[in-house]
């Protein structure tokens, strides 16, 4: 077929991400919004089988995920890179108790960023997470989002691993000003 439309991706990376959450049986989806997560958050609000939990600060989500697993439910924390700094001490709950944990972080401050105030925390995001004992997986290609999320959920909930997935700013697209 010469028609290039035949080669277009038929599902968006956001749909692939959301499908990976659904297929893994994620029930609680705490978030502090980011434009990069907005479609997934919208999908969660329309889905009766997944509970989106809007937070006032990201560390609330860390504690929520631990409580959810005490009660037997899987969860994923959505935030942007600036929120990682808010979580640092609360992440000790994950390592002290070996809780399974998956967070998906949209990166600001690294590619085409207009707002320099996003840069310091962005630069420290991966290092901060690693210092607190998380395994960090960075995704640059849209096609890799769904499989990376599915693999992280499998690892976390089969053997109590803690994984942060960073979605690069190039992937999500920089905010237009």
């Amino acid at each position, binding site marked *: 077929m010469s028609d290039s439309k035949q080669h277009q991706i038929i599902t968006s990376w956001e749909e692939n991400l959301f499908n990976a959450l659904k297929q893994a049986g994620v029930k609680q989806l705490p978030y502090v919004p980011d434009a990069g997560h907005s479609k997934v958050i919208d999908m969660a609000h329309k889905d009766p089988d997944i509970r989106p939990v809007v937070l*006032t600060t990201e560390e*609330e989500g860390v504690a929520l995920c631990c409580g959810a697993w005490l*009660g037997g439910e899987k969860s994923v924390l959505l935030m942007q890179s600036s929120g990682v700094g808010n979580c640092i001490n609360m992440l000790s*709950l994950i390592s*002290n108790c070996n809780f399974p944990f998956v967070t998906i972080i949209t990166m600001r401050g690294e590619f085409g960023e207009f707002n320099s105030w996003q840069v310091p925390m962005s630069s420290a995001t991966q290092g901060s997470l690693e210092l607190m004992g998380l395994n960090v997986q960075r995704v640059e290609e849209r096609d890799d989002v769904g499989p990376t999320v599915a693999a992280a959920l499998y690892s976390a909930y089969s053997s109590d691993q803690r994984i942060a997935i960073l979605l690069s700013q190039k992937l999500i697209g920089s905010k237009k000003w």
Partner: protein
Amino acid sequence: MTVEKLNRREVVKKLISNRANLLIISGLGSPTYDLHDAGDNNQNFYLWGAMGGAAMMGLGLALSQPEKSVLVVTGDGEQLMGIGALATISVQMPKNLTIAVLDNEHFGETGMQKSHTGYGVDLVGIAHSSGFPISQELTNMSDIEVARDDILLNNGPMFLNIKINSQSPDRSLPTLDGVELKNRFRTSLKSQ
């Protein structure tokens, strides 16, 4: 005549005296010692750190176990650090969650510095205006007895601010092993 403030150990013992299948999370410091002193149980999860996280951990648990009653016992300092949780909980409105703050108006573990409640901050008012349908200040043991029964009704979310004296009883220490605390809690839930 001044009314004597409540004793924290007596409060916690009374509050959970008919616990049945109640799931309990305690905030770091004295509330953890109080809960342990009231009787260890596989369905107690004691926090030794993660300050500010107790109420949110309770929310995650309450949402995942909607048929059970969940009680968070914590201190005024711990709740103040996680004050936004009261707004987050109100948005979710879990009927089976009670947050009970043992309010001695001080940071008891760190040298008894006065906390915000000691300067007049009103946690009951904050919980009420956040949207908790029930938000009460408790000052005597008969209040505690009523609350004890209300916790099991699942008509919440409920916020209880319990005014206690600032005495520090001897510590009663549960295990520090977080993995053990997690595993025994989950195992006991699965076996029910």
